[in-house]
Structures are given as structure tokens and as C-alpha cells.
């Protein structure tokens, strides 16, 4: 990290983040959590960026919105983050440590402070035909709009170009209907000036304008679309609600083609570079399309399959084998439309040289990424340099620094990259900013002081209920006064009132007053969803001196008035039920405590390579001490074998300066030749035993751990390596080149993928293609007439490295493609003169002939493999490895540098093969995440955790088995009784252990058995009279499926009002006893919902739910209840349609089935 000299006294502890995509969001959260004020500026009316528009993300097929939306909400409610959406940066003055930035907020014509986001204005707006930018113009929106349902901030925006009043001076309907009086046609653009110490540019890029590739017919042929348009078509919240259909006639396509490299690797349009992500996203879209409709056949036309990331090749193999996606290597020259049916003809050459003609229903152009048109203006504004393509210029050893001190960059603005790379760079950029401004940390952030908490334990419940009209959102459907009257009849109710907007700031004051006036010790707000508003009301309670967990919400808007708009009576009855269920739970609520936990402000970094050293230095510049443990006797790691980078930078020189910096830094304590023996403890308080170089044990105490153990070179036993000295690895070649030994060879043959992408090691080592090109160019530079052949499978010089691949070809390096089933053969032959000749036999799949290359040097591009020690370390740290032996991060997309175990982080090649530049970025990113708890000095334990009744515990250890976080451990107490102990710091509160406990000795705080059973009993009170209407009880998890139910509301998708919903933290919390209780309590059907497999927020809770569902189905069948009464559905946060459909279908099916045979004996119950 470059040290930037400036007067520390006038540094400003605030950072401007330009761009509110996933990069900007991650950088902002990292900074705000570390004690810096953050301003986010985004030109769009909502943050979220491109990721918000994606349907699924590779390689896990996670729902994009499910994983992004919680982060957007975190940003919006973070006290240290201010979002300027629909705004742009006008001017930047000042210098590093103290910038003055002018921001212009465009007129939304809606007052952001008073708009409640209810959406009534959108509903009433008569302008219906505006193409929605968010849906790439395929879907339509109104003139007043939210770009998408989950928009943050949730403030409506008027499109001045389309608004009837602003263009023709008529209408003003939105103004009439807005109860909050938030419409302001007089609103003028506002200028803000903010002072910040650093700036992070996360502006992202645009996609290539496919019309420029005239031959592919985009813009001319209706059924040629871009990949991002297809992404919206696939999305459940997209213009066609996830139904795959083609634009010309709305018919579902059967045959679709993807054309790769549209606007990438193409000198004709000036985008010479590779866009890095298209191979993977096309494969993903093909897979998802197949999942949507089983009879879709996809063909992907590609140049090189560049699926170089972690576990990407495995994904492609699955796409080929399980989803039947066809990959054809061919640059398609043109697409032709058949006028009569608007099908599309593609003529292409197959691998065996035949010309094929094929017809497709839909052609998708995999458009590349490119800097936006106004990038020059942006660069001028911020005073930074761009590269020749318009990407932000950075250096290999400082990947997030721009040319101007104090301004950092992350994400695609510096080069094309995928989401995890962007997230890594975002955290890295925030580390750079934090290091720069460490002296000003904590100065500008708000710290809230609270009054002392009132102890309500032992008091009888005194409940206050506040029922919200939400303008007319609730009040227009539900008879709010009658809900209020009903609430008054419920037990322990002391006070009930109705509000126009319960969330408005004056109501918050009112709630506080009423708490005092009536000595309330429980509060219920019947309004919208806890996902967005629980935190606000909990704050209000806390300000009034009540514990946050004495609050309960009844969601009578998103899950009632919005989805039963045409059934006001049923909606009113349901609202009463929802209030009653909330009261039932509120009566049983207990105050919960979050315990403060001191964090030792020291970090253990395991591994002293480039990643480890960069991490240590970054930590030091943020002001944290580091124990740097390296198993070798010297620092440097694998990079000691490298001499220069593809771009020509001097690796050894860099390494020397890095090592001396580390050695000189007093904050870094280095242990060379040392090994980790044991690690105990948890975040904040780890104790590590190391065996140092002298064989002595030392104990280190630290708060966090960063794993940077790097990788090793694969030692080949193929291609005569070891038999003939003329067969060497790239690393060995590089050493020779660095030593200047060029005279030893004339004919060099390089073989790619040695030990990579093969049986047993089915991953790409990512850097070898670049290495080969690098060394080939070096040879050509020093010895232009040498012959260099590179035998490859796919040349994976992704991103800007593509330039060097092209340069290599221009310098007559010969690239020969071989097929994985016909690998090259290296042979030795005795010549007449007694010498051994070394030959390489290769079948050239382009020429379709066998070639014999005479070589005097064969260079093997060997795989990067995980050190065997990883296994031991993984066991010590209790963190997982992937099947290739690399460490497995908590979440492939959004948590790329952390483990599920809190306080343990990873970076560099320990995570998977990567370049020096990428390793440095990841090291900074790990530091950013690792430094958050240290900067806070104190962290708080979760309140909603599991708790073991140790006296009842039988020590069976099942809970330890099901806990995905290693938070449960069977331990021997001092009295020798073996009991399960739950580490409250590591417990995330899913509740799966509480269900499996055979002795029922585990309870979940805030979702305990008594509370949930009471909610179930309160769900259906009065037996129906007249025609049978099935009553369905739904269990949702707190994350995906509850959000899916909310989205059905936000999208106003109507479904029958026969459902009552009980929210748990995870579907893994659904206890079989809950189902029996539901069947006893009048439910005619029970629906268990959760996140899709692989998307569970608690890793595996949903899988346990599924296993229990199977058992339960047979249990209820055994006693004579139709198993159809119990269902399981996976519903993601973007599947509002699916949620509504599940309910509708289930109601219809149960209606046919008739009432639950048990309900006949049930009479009116009492709460």
C-alpha cells in the first residue's frame, strides 16, 4: 500500500461512494461498520445496480434479489450511511484527506421525507406505457414509478418527460390520491456539498450496444435479444413473470442460441478485451431456461470457454451433462431472420469442418461490458486517468488505487469482472480508504445514547396496539376502526389506537408517549412488514426504555390488504386474526439481552506470502497489530518463484520492498518457520498455540484470523517430466528467462492445463494461460525467431489480459487447440547422431490433422494445487474446504473473504487459484471485513439464539451434528456431566437444534415452543359457517419465503384470504409438534415454506425441514389424515407469484378434499 503523506489533523472521517451497485453497497457497509460516515451517490432512483436486475447468479443459481435486498436494506437503515439516489456528482475539489464534493439531486417531484412508499400514486397514474429501464424496456411502467418492487429508498419518482402534468399541465391524479401529501410538482433540483476524506468509484459499466453488430440483427429482428434482456425475461419479477417467451409472438421458445463475445474480443468495435463474465452468465441463463421449461434446447456459440473462476468448470460440466446445453466453438458470422415465422437461421462450421445450418426460435447475444459514454466527463470530474478503453487505470500491485491519491476504484469500472470479484474489490477499496483515514475513524459517526431499560420481568403483560391505515393502503380495504375495537377485547390489552401512518416520525413520538402514559410493557404495530419496519419500531421502543424484543408486528398490509383488495370483509377478519395472533405471542414475549463482547484488537495472519504480507501491512496501517505466521523460514511464499507479471512488472523487486516493509513495521510480529498447533476460542477472543522455529510453543491471543496459506505448484508425472531435463514447468522456464538463458532453445512447445481441468482436479488454475502468454512474449522479445507453440484447450486470458494474447499472436506465437480427449503426447526418439530428439504429437482440432512438433524445450503449464496442510488447518479452525482442497468461503457471491464461522477470514490462493493483483485485492478485502469487529472494539452477541437446559440434556450430541456454525459442542462440565453448550457468539438462531433435541432440552429465544404453539392455537378461532372455506396455516422462514409473501403483496398479486402465516427464523425451526398442533387447532392444511435448497440463510436448515416434512407426511397419513394437507414449498424472495400460486392451488386442492376431519370436534376456543 502506498503511503500517502498528509496532515492527519485535517483528515475527514467520511467517504464518498459513487455508484450504488453491489460494489458501492459493500464498500459503504464496510466503511460505515468501521466508524466512517458514508455518502452514496447513484444516478438511478434506487441503489442496487446491475445485480438487482439479475435473475440468478452463477455458479450457485442463488436468487440475485434474495441475497442483494438485505444488503440494500442494511444500507438504507445504517445510521452512518446517507443515500443520494437520482443524483450525480457535479464537482470535486480539494485533495486527499479533504475533498469537497458537490452533489446534484434531480427532482423526483416527490418529497422523499414524507413519501411512505405505499404505491397508491403508481396505481392511479394514467400513463401506462413507459418502457421500464429496469426491465431493459421490455416491461412497462407508469410516469410515476418505483424502478422495481424492492427499491431502496422506497420513494416514488416522477418521470418528468412522461408526466401529463409536467408536460401538458393536466392530470395531477397522484397528488390527489397521496394521503401523505408527498407529491411536490414545484420541487427543484437540490445541490449538496459534502466533505469527505476519500472517494471510492464504483460506477460500474454499461453493456455493449448490440445494434452496432449489425450482422446479428439486434434491433432489426424481434427475436434477437441481449443477454441482460433475457435475464429480465427469466426473472420471476420480470416483465413476463418468469415465463420464457419470445418477443415477436409471445410463444415459448424451444430452441435458443447464445452468441458469445458480442462486443468483446472484437477489434472491429474497439472492445479488444474479454468481458470475463459472459461465458458463465450465458451458461447460467441456459441452465435456468431449462429449469423454467424442460423442453428448451440451448446452444452456446463461443470462441474460448472462459469459465476460469472457482467451481465454474464444474458448473459447465453440469450444464452439459445434466441440462443438455450444447457448446459449439465457432464465431457466428451472421443471424438471418425467416420472415414468415420470424425464426432465426444461424450458419456455422462444426468442429469436423462441416457447414451446418440451424434454426432457432430465439437468439441471445451475450453482450460484453464497456465503459459508459460519459466516462470521460467522470474522469475529468474526479481528475483520474483512464486506460485506452476508458476503464479506470490501476497498477498491478495496487489494484484499487486510481492515479489520484485518495480516490479509489472497485468493480467493473477498473476492468470487467463478476460479482464476487467486485465485492472483493469493494472491500479492498474500503480498506484503502480506512487505512488512509484511520486517524479520523469514529469522528463523524453518530453514536446513539439510550435511556436505561425498564425491567418488566415479572409484570403482567400490558399491551399497546397501534393499527396503521397506511393512507388508504390498509384503510382502503380493511375496516381499521373495527380492528381497533376488536383488539380492545383481547386479553392484557391496555391501549389501542389507529394511525394514518404508524411509521411517521410524529407517530413514533406518540408511541413513546403512550408507552409512558399507560405503562405499556409490550407493543404491537399492525401495519406493514417487519422486514422493512421492525427495526424502526424496535428503536422507538428502546428510546422509550423498553427492550427491543417486547415488540411484535402484524403484517396487515403486504400480507392482507394488498393481496385481498376485492374482499374487504375477509381482509378485515384476517386483520383481526393477525392482530390476535400477534397479541398471543406478545403476551409471552421476554426481554432479551445482547451481551457486549470485547474484541482483542490483534489479528493472526496465517501465511507470509503476498496475500498474507499485504493483509498484515493493511492491518498495520489501520492501526491493528498482527501476528504473521509463516511455515517457511523466509517470507514471500510462492511469489519467490515469479519474476515478472504479464504487464511486465518486477515481482521480485516488489517482493523485496514488501518484505522489508513488513520487517520494519512495529505492528507486525512475524514468526518464521512456525506452525499452527491449535486454535481455540471465538471471534474477539482467539487463543492460538504455535510451534516456533526453535520448537518452542507460544500462545498468541487475538480477535480475528485471516487464512492466507496460498497454493503450490502441481508436480506433474506426465509428458516425460522428470524423465527428460528438457521438459520443464512454466515456473522453471521463468527462472531461466529471468537468468537470461535464452540460447538453450529454438523451438519451445508449451502445454496448457497440465493437471488442471482433468479427472480428479476438475478446476481451472486461472493464471496458467496468462503465464504461458507472458513467457511466450518474453521469449519472442529476446529471441524473435524462436518458435513458440502453445497447445491449449481454451485460452483463458480474461479481462484486459486479452490484449497480451493478441500481442502474442501478432508476434507469431502459434496457438494450437487440442481436445481434452486427445491430449498431446511427448516422445523421445534416438536419432542417428546419438542425440535424443524430443517431439510433441498433437492433433490440431482446427486443422484437423496430427502435427509433430520438434521441440528443444517442452514447458508444462502446471496446475495450482492446494497445500496438503490445508486439511489439518481446516480441522483446527473448524472451517470447510471444497473438494479440491481450497478453503470454502461463507458465500460464493457476497461473502467471498469470510467463513461461516465468525471472525475467521480468507484471502489469496488459499481461496482458489488467482493472480497477484487479485490476491492483493482479496487480502485488502479480508482486512476490511476482519477489521470491522476490531474497529468496533466491542461486538454484541445475537439475542435470538438457542439455549440448552443443561440439567435436562442427555448428551446425545445431535444438536452439534445439525448446527451449521459449529456453535454447539458437547462438553464435560466441572461436575463431569456431559452437556451441550451453545456458544451464543457463534449461534445464528436458526432453531434447527431445538427441533432435533430428543429431550426437548433446547429452546429458541423469541421463537420458543410455547410462543409458537400459542400462535398456532390463536390462528383460527371460529369454526366457519356456511360453505366450506379451507383454512391454511403457513410457516415461513424470516428470509426468502417471508420476503416472497411480501413481494406478492408489493406486486398486488391476489390470493385467497384463507391463510394465516407464522414467521420463524428458518424452516429448520418447524417442529413436527407444530404441525400436529395446527391440525388440532382448525387448520385444514399446513404449508411449510423456506429458501430453495442451497440458498438457506442458515446453510442447511431447509434440508432438515425437508427431511422432517417427509417423515411428517407419513406420520399424518398413518393416523388417517390425508397427506395432501401438508405441503412443502421453496419460495425465494423474488417469487411473489409463486407464493400466491402455492396458496391459491393449495386452497383449491383442500377445498376439494373437504374439511380437516379433526375440525368437526373443535368448538370455539378461547385465547
Amino acid at each position, binding site marked *: 500500500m502506498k503511503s500517502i503523506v498528509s496532515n492527519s489533523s485535517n483528515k475527514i472521517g467520511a467517504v464518498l461512494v459513487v455508484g450504488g451497485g453491489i460494489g458501492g453497497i459493500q464498500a459503504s457497509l464496510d466503511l460505515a461498520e468501521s466508524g466512517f460516515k458514508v455518502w452514496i451517490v447513484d444516478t438511478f432512483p434506487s441503489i442496487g445496480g446491475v445485480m438487482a436486475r439479475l435473475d440468478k447468479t452463477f455458479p450457485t443459481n442463488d436468487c440475485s434479489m434474495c441475497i442483494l435486498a438485505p444488503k440494500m436494506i442494511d444500507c438504507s437503515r445504517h445510521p452512518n450511511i446517507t443515500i443520494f439516489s437520482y443524483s450525480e456528482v457535479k464537482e470535486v475539489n480539494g485533495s486527499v484527506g479533504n475533498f469537497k464534493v458537490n452533489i446534484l439531486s434531480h427532482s423526483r417531484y416527490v418529497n422523499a421525507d414524507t413519501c411512505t412508499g405505499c404505491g397508491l400514486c403508481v396505481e392511479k397514474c394514467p400513463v401506462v406505457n413507459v418502457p421500464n429501464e429496469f426491465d431493459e424496456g421490455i416491461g412497462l411502467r407508469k410516469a410515476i414509478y418505483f424502478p422495481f418492487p424492492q427499491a431502496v429508498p422506497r420513494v416514488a419518482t416522477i418521470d418528468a418527460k412522461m408526466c401529463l402534468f409536467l408536460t401538458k399541465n393536466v392530470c395531477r391524479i397522484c397528488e390527489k390520491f397521496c394521503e401523505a401529501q408527498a407529491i411536490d410538482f414545484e420541487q427543484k433540483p437540490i445541490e449538496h456539498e459534502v466533505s469527505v476524506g476519500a472517494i471510492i468509484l464504483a460506477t460500474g459499466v454499461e453493456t455493449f450496444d448490440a445494434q452496432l453488430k449489425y450482422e446479428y440483427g439486434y434491433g432489426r429482428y424481434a427475436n434477437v435479444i441481449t443477454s441482460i434482456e433475457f435475464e429480465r425475461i427469466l426473472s420471476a419479477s420480470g416483465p413476463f413473470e418468469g415465463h420464457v417467451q419470445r418477443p415477436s409472438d409471445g410463444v415459448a421458445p424451444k430452441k435458443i442460441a447464445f452468441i458469445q463475445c458480442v462486443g468483446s474480443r472484437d477489434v472491429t468495435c474497439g472492445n479488444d478485451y474479454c468481458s470475463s463474465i459472459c461465458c458463465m452468465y450465458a451458461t447460467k441463463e441456459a441452465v435456468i431456461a431449462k429449469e423454467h421449461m424442460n423442453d428448451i434446447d440451448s446452444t452456446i456459440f463461443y470462441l474460448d470457454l472462459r469459465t476460469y473462476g472457482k467451481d465454474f468448470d464444474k458448473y459447465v460440466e453440469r450444464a452439459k451433462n445434466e441440462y443438455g446445453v450444447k457448446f459449439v466453438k465457432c464465431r457466428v458470422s451472421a443471424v438471418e431472420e425467416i420472415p414468415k415465422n420470424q425464426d432465426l437461421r444461424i450458419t456455422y462450421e462444426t468442429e469436423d469442418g462441416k457447414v451446418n445450418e440451424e434454426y432457432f426460435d430465439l437468439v441471445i447475444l451475450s453482450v460484453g461490458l464497456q465503459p459508459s459514454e460519459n466516462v470521460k466527463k467522470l474522469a475529468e470530474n474526479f481528475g483520474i486517468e483512464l486506460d485506452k478503453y476508458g476503464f479506470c487505470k490501476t497498477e498491478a500491485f495496487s489494484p484499487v488505487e486510481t492515479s489520484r491519491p485518495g480516490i479509489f476504484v472497485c468493480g467493473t469500472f477498473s476492468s470487467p469482472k463478476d460479482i464476487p470479484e467486485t465485492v472483493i474489490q469493494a472491500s479492498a477499496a474500503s480498506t484503502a480508504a480506512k487505512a488512509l483515514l484511520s486517524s479520523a475513524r469514529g469522528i463523524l459517526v453518530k453514536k446513539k445514547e439510550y435511556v436505561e431499560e425498564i425491567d418488566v420481568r415479572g409484570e403482567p403483560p400490558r399491551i399497546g396496539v397501534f393499527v396503521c391505515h397506511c393512507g388508504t393502503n390498509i384503510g382502503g380495504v380493511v375496516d381499521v376502526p373495527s380492528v381497533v375495537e376488536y383488539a380492545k377485547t383481547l386479553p392484557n390489552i391496555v391501549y389501542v389506537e389507529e394511525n394514518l401512518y404508524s411509521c411517521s416520525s410524529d407517530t413514533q413520538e406518540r408511541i413513546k408517549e403512550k408507552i409512558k402514559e399507560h405503562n405499556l410493557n409490550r407493543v404491537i404495530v399492525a401495519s406493514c412488514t417487519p422486514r422493512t419496519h421492525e427495526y424502526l419500531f424496535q428503536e422507538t421502543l428502546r428510546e422509550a426504555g423498553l427492550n427491543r424484543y417486547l415488540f411484535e408486528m402484524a403484517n396487515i398490509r403486504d400480507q392482507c390488504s394488498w393481496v385481498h383488495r376485492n374482499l374487504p370483509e375477509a381482509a378485515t377478519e384476517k386483520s383481526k386474526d393477525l392482530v390476535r395472533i400477534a397479541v398471543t405471542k406478545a403476551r409471552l414475549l421476554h426481554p432479551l439481552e445482547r451481551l457486549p463482547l470485547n474484541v482483542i484488537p490483534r489479528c493472526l495472519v496465517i501465511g507470509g506470502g503476498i496475500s498474507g504480507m499485504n493483509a498484515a501491512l493493511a492491518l498495520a496501517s489501520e492501526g491493528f497489530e498482527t501476528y504473521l505466521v509463516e511455515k517457511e523460514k523466509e517470507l514471500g511464499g510462492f511469489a519467490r518463484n515469479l519474476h515478472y507479471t504479464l504487464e511486465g512488472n518486477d515481482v521480485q523487486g516488489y517482493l523485496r520492498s514488501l518484505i522489508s516493509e513488513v520487517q520494519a513495521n512495529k505492528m507486525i510480529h512475524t514468526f518464521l518457520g512456525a506452525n499452527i498447533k491449535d486454535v481455540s476460542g471465538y471471534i474477539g477472543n482467539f487463543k492460538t498455540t504455535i510451534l516456533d522455529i526453535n520448537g518452542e510453543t507460544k500462545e498468541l491471543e487475538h480477535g480475528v484470523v485471516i487464512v492466507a496459506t496460498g497454493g503450490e505448484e502441481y508436480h506433474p508425472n506426465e509428458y516425460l517430466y522428470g524423465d527428460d531435463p528438457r521438459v520443464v514447468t512454466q515456473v522453471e522456464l521463468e527462472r531461466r528467462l529471468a537468468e537470461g538463458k535464452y540460447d538453450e532453445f529454438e523451438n519451445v512447445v508449451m502445454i496448457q492445463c497440465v493437471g488442471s481441468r482433468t479427472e480428479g482436479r476438475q478446476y481451472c488454475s486461472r493464471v496458467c494461460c496468462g503465464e504461458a502468454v507472458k513467457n511466450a512474449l518474453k521469449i519472442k522479445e529476446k529471441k524473435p525467431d524462436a518458435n513458440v507453440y502453445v497447445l491449449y484447450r481454451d485460452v483463458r486470458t480474461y479481462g484486459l489480459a486479452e490484449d497480451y494474447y493478441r500481442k502474442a499472436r501478432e508476434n507469431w506465437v502459434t496457438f494450437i487447440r487440442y481436445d481434452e480427449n486427445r491430449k498431446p503426447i511427448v516422445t523421445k526418439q534416438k536419432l542417428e547422431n546419438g542425440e535424443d530428439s524430443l517431439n510433441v504429437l498433437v492433433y490440431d482440432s482446427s486443422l484437423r490433422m496430427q502435427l509433430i512438433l520438434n521441440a528443444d524445450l517442452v514447458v508444462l503449464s502446471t496446475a495450482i494445487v492446494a497445500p496438503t496442510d490445508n486439511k489439518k488447518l481446516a480441522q483446527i479452525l473448524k472451517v470447510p474446504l471444497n473438494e479440491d482442497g481450497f478453503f470454502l468461503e461463507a458465500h460464493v457471491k457476497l461473502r467471498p473473504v469470510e467463513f461461516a464461522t465468525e471472525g475467521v477470514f480468507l484471502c489469496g490462493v488459499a481461496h482458489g487459484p488467482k493472480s497477484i493483483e487479485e490476491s492483493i485485492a482479496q487480502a485488502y478485502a479480508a482486512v476490511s471485513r476482519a477489521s470491522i469487529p476490531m474497529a468496533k472494539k466491542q461486538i454484541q452477541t445475537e439475542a435470538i439464539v438457542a439455549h440448552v437446559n443443561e440439567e435436562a440434556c*442427555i448428551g446425545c450430541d445431535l444438536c452439534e451434528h445439525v448446527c451449521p456454525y459449529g456453535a454447539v459442542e458437547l462438553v464435560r462440565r466441572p461436575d463431569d456431566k456431559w452437556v451441550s453448550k451453545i456458544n451464543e457468539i457463534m449461534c445464528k438462531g436458526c432453531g434447527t437444534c431445538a427441533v432435533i433435541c430428543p429431550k*426437548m432440552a433446547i429452546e429458541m429465544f423469541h421463537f420458543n415452543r410455547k410462543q409458537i404453539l400459542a400462535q398456532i392455537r390463536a390462528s383460527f378461532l371460529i369454526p366457519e359457517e356456511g360453505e366450506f372455506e379451507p383454512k391454511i396455516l403457513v410457516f415461513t422462514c424470516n428470509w426468502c419465503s417471508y420476503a416472497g409473501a411480501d413481494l406478492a403483496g408489493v406486486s398486488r398479486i391476489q390470493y385467497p384470504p384463507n391463510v394465516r402465516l407464522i414467521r420463524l427464523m428458518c424452516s429448520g425451526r418447524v417442529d413436527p*409438534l407444530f404441525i*400436529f398442533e395446527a391440525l*388440532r387447532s382448525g387448520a385444514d392444511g399446513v404449508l411449510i415454506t423456506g429458501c430453495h435448497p442451497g440458498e438457506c440463510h442458515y446453510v442447511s436448515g431447509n434440508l432438515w425441514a425437508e427431511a422432517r416434512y417427509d417423515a411428517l407426511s407419513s406420520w399424518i397419513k*398413518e393416523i388417517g*389424515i390425508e397427506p395432501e394437507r401438508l405441503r412443502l414449498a421453496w419460495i425465494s424472495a423474488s417469487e411473489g407469484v409463486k407464493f400466491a400460486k402455492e396458496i391459491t392451488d393449495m386452497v383449491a386442492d383442500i377445498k376439494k378434499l373437504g374439511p380437516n376431519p*379433526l375440525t368437526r370436534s373443535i368448538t370455539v376456543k378461547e385465547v
Partner: protein
Amino acid sequence: MIVVKLKPFTEISSMLGKYQSILIVGCDGCSGIYEVGGLKQAEILKQQLELARELRKGGKIRVKTVSIPRQCDVDIVANKLRREVAEQEAILSLGCGVGVQTLADIYDDKPVFPALDTMFIGMEDKSQGKLFERCKACGDCILAETGGICPITRCAKGLLNGPCGGTVNSKCEVYEYTRDCAWILIWNRLKQRGMMNLFTKFRPFRVNRQHSPRELEKTISVSKH
């Protein structure tokens, strides 16, 4: 541990045909730990019994549940359950065969029914989600000589002197070559430990096994005095 399996519900339900109040006794020992006979399972069974009775209009059944540390423990069964047992007409045991018999011996005035089938002495492999038999309780342990792998139990034929001709690719013919040959496992284990001399030791056919029911004197016991 003792590996148990829950009986089909219909079988349990028909056993309890006429009774109107029963006590389900769970066991926190083996059956509880294997998620078959603990308090949780007792609660689930209670729900099933009550609801099934209600559906069949067979009148009400009142079910109480309790679980005790070990049903095979005469003292616990005799002293800790008396009150609960007295209140109910019949007992449904969620213990192994030993538990059922202990209950039946002590509460000889109450009908005692087994809810479980007792399978074998074994262990659970959670990664496979399966339970495996490991010990035949033969009373003459030779595990010291066989690398801790019991050929009496794990060899389908109970052979004592190496694999038979039915071993193909380390798999046993008795189970259609799907399961490991115990003697190959023993070979590998002994080799790993450098104890191959034990493999060649001849073990004669054992004739000293007692006939059931077996008995055993306790070394230290107050009953002797």
C-alpha cells in the same frame, strides 16, 4: 448402543385398541439418542394416538408422556415412574426389549406394550444416515487380534480365519458384493498397524459360548453380603 426401530403406527395403535389412558415412557438412553424413543418421539406418538382415536370416533384416549434416563435400569423404573404409571391404564414403552421387560416385570399389574423393534447392538454413521451392527455380544472378545473389527458380527459367515472364496474386489458375496468383506478390512487395518503376524494366527472354532439366557455375577455387589 442398542439400535431400535419404531413399529408401524397401525401396529402400535391396534395393540392399544381398548385402552383409554396410556403412559408413553420414553428412554433417554440408546433409543432417545437415535431419535426413536426420546421425549420428543413420545410427544409425537402422543399426538398421533390422540388424533387417530379422535378420527376413528373411538372415544378419547388420554396420553401422558415421560422419559427416563434408562428403561433398562430396574431402580429408575421402579422408583421414578410409580405415580405416572398409577394414573394410566397401560404403558407404551419407547425403550428396547430390555426396557419393555423391565417395565413389565416391575409393573406387573399393568399391560406394557413395545412401540419399538429392537434390532441389534451397533452404531450410527451420520454421514451415511445409517446404523450398522457391530457386536454380537458373544462373550469372548477377539477384537485385540483383529484390529478392532469384529469378524463374528461383520463377516456374514462369522468366519474366524480370514476371508472366504466369496470375496470379490474386497466385497462380500452374501450381500451381492455391495458390502465390505470384514476380513479384507481386518487385513488392511493390521497392515496399517504393522501387526500382520496376528493375521496368520489360527483361531479354532469356539465352543465355549453359553446358551441363552446368559447370566453374569457382578464383581462388586452388596447383594452378596
